[in-house]
């Protein structure tokens, strides 16, 4: 940097370089979050508007059984969806990364995104209903018809379907960078294939696994469309609650409290993970 720069010039440089990004983050990340935080301490007016004074009652309401239950169910769906995505997505990422036509496979993986999310969820509804394709197939083998819709299973299935690519992509990125010589080194040192994989390959994909897990778990907990359409009221997730507060219930203050709670939970989990993993965990997060 030029040493002769006056303080004014330096300020100008900082504004020009960091300014636009900072402004963006302030306007679209920090400000809305602060507004939500503020709203969560207010209460619902007679016409559904926000009004003072500041209170903690929205947060106390979170502890009531129906809300705790929804939260527990969200955790359950999020965890199961993440686990299933890992079981399906981890091998898939390896398969794609090591395939000669991986460009084509990646394209196919992302192809569903060219169709609207709602339409894809409706497609599951059509497939899973009593007269749907899945039941027709099952009946051909003398099974069913099963009442697959509406059900928890349907919600889980569609959630995994929706978020699987978000798991596969970061793992794929990890797999592409794997140093396969470490696998040979492990073999060379006497490790049989499973243990060689466990010690030499798996750790190299931890960053991808973690990123994929976060990218599935967080939206799977917060999504409400899938639970609405395929659960038809039987599955109520925290996302559904939030949507209800901002929609039919017109209780923005409580909706905001639910959102803050969800955000807080996610941030706390990430923080704990990072602490658990020490320095390396923090690197993975970035």
């Amino acid at each position, binding site marked *: 940097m030029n040493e002769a720069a006056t303080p004014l010039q330096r300020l100008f440089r900082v504004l020009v370089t960091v300014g636009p990004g900072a402004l963006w983050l302030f306007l679209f990340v920090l400000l809305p979050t602060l507004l939500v935080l503020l709203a969560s301490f207010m209460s619902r007016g007679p016409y559904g508007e926000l009004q003072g004074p500041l209170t903690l009652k929205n947060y106390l309401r979170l502890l009531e059984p129906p809300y705790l239950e929804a939260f527990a169910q969200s955790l359950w769906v999020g965890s199961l969806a993440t686990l299933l995505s890992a079981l399906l997505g981890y091998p898939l990422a390896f398969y794609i990364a090591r395939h000669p036509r991986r460009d084509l496979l990646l394209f196919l993986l992302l192809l569903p995104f060219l169709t609207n999310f709602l339409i894809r969820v409706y497609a599951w509804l059509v497939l899973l209903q009593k007269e749907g394709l899945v039941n027709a197939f099952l009946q051909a083998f003398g099974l069913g018809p099963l009442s697959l819709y509406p059900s928890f299973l349907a919600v889980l299935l569609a959630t995994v379907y929706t978020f699987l690519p978000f798991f596969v992509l970061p793992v794929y990125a990890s797999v592409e960078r794997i140093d396969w010589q470490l696998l040979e*080194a492990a073999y*060379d*040192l*006497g490790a049989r294939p499973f243990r060689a994989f466990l010690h030499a390959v798996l750790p190299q994909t931890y960053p991808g696994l973690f990123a994929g897990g976060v990218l599935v778990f967080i939206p799977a907990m917060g999504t409400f469309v899938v639970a609405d359409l395929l659960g038809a009221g039987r599955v109520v997730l925290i996302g559904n609650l939030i949507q209800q507060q901002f929609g039919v219930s017109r209780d923005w203050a409580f909706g905001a409290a639910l959102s803050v709670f969800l955000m807080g939970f996610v941030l706390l989990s990430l923080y704990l993970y990072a602490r658990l993993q020490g320095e390396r965990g923090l690197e993975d997060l970035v």
Partner: protein
Amino acid sequence: MAGDVLVRLSGVRKAFGGVLALDGVDLEVHRGEFFSLLGPSGCGKTTLLRLLAGFDTPDAGRIEIAGRDMAGVPPYERPVNTVFQNYALFPHMTVEANVAFGLRMKGLPQEAIREKVAWALELVDLLGLEKRYPRELSGGQKQRVALARALVLEPQVLLLDEPLSALDARLRQDLRVELMQLQRRLGTTFIFVTHDQEEALVMSDRIAVMRSGRIEQVGLPDEVYERPKTRFVAAFLGRSNFLPARPHPLGAETPLGPLRLRAPLAREALLAIRPEKIRLYPLGNGLPARENLVRAVVEEIVYTGAENQYYLRSGEVRLLAYTLNQDLQEPGAEEFGYGEEVLCYLPPENLVVLHE
């Protein structure tokens, strides 16, 4: 040492996608030997090492280690360990854990593992760095960890894939000596892959010079250097002057005139002579010999410190000759000057007949 064959390869072939990497290799390595596979990149030396380690399988031929056929034996069951070119240390494990890895895979008890790891780390002079991660180590230290990790398993054969090539020149020289001492101390058989002829000459008990998937010559370092069998070996190890030759009553008829050899030539062949074997004399100071004398003109002089390299021309033939810088010279006062005519003596015992 002699007679006790530890590694035996016969008729080993390997192709990758139609490209022949090894074209019928026969080789015997003795127990306790420091054996080098020397050759330019792409000659198949690394492929050979990978076949021994079990990472690849030969298309044809037989590999025996310690009297056992290695066909179908996976790498994790072979009595060999490898030191990889770029170390291949596990980045998420400490030095200690890296060295302990093989012992853990063997299922040794904790106490035994701790003892052996300490022994191996002391062997390579790394005590005190147990808790470091590979990313916190220098290149030389990583190399030592890789060595310790392999040696701690006490393999019958240690395979080393250009282990020094990633290090800077100074460190490489030090590690050369250390590797030699280590090998002598442990008595482990080393099979050492390198493209560095000096490394091979300095370190090895025996050298196999490889060229496009074949073994060109196997022998003691001085044997391979002094008595190269082919033009390739003569040119790859050090430098050589080559002279086409035909039979002649004296020995051989060459572009430099008739030359005496150790034994007369039976048919056309190529002669080789090392630059340092050619002796240079000033003209008209009494002949140093009666035969194998050639007049030549100095075209270029390269001063390298320890020696002077003279680029000479005799008629149409170019010759390279080295003279040792034994006496302290006045600056600019080489033994011979540019354009000066000198007398080259090509001793008959140093003229090597190449087969090919």
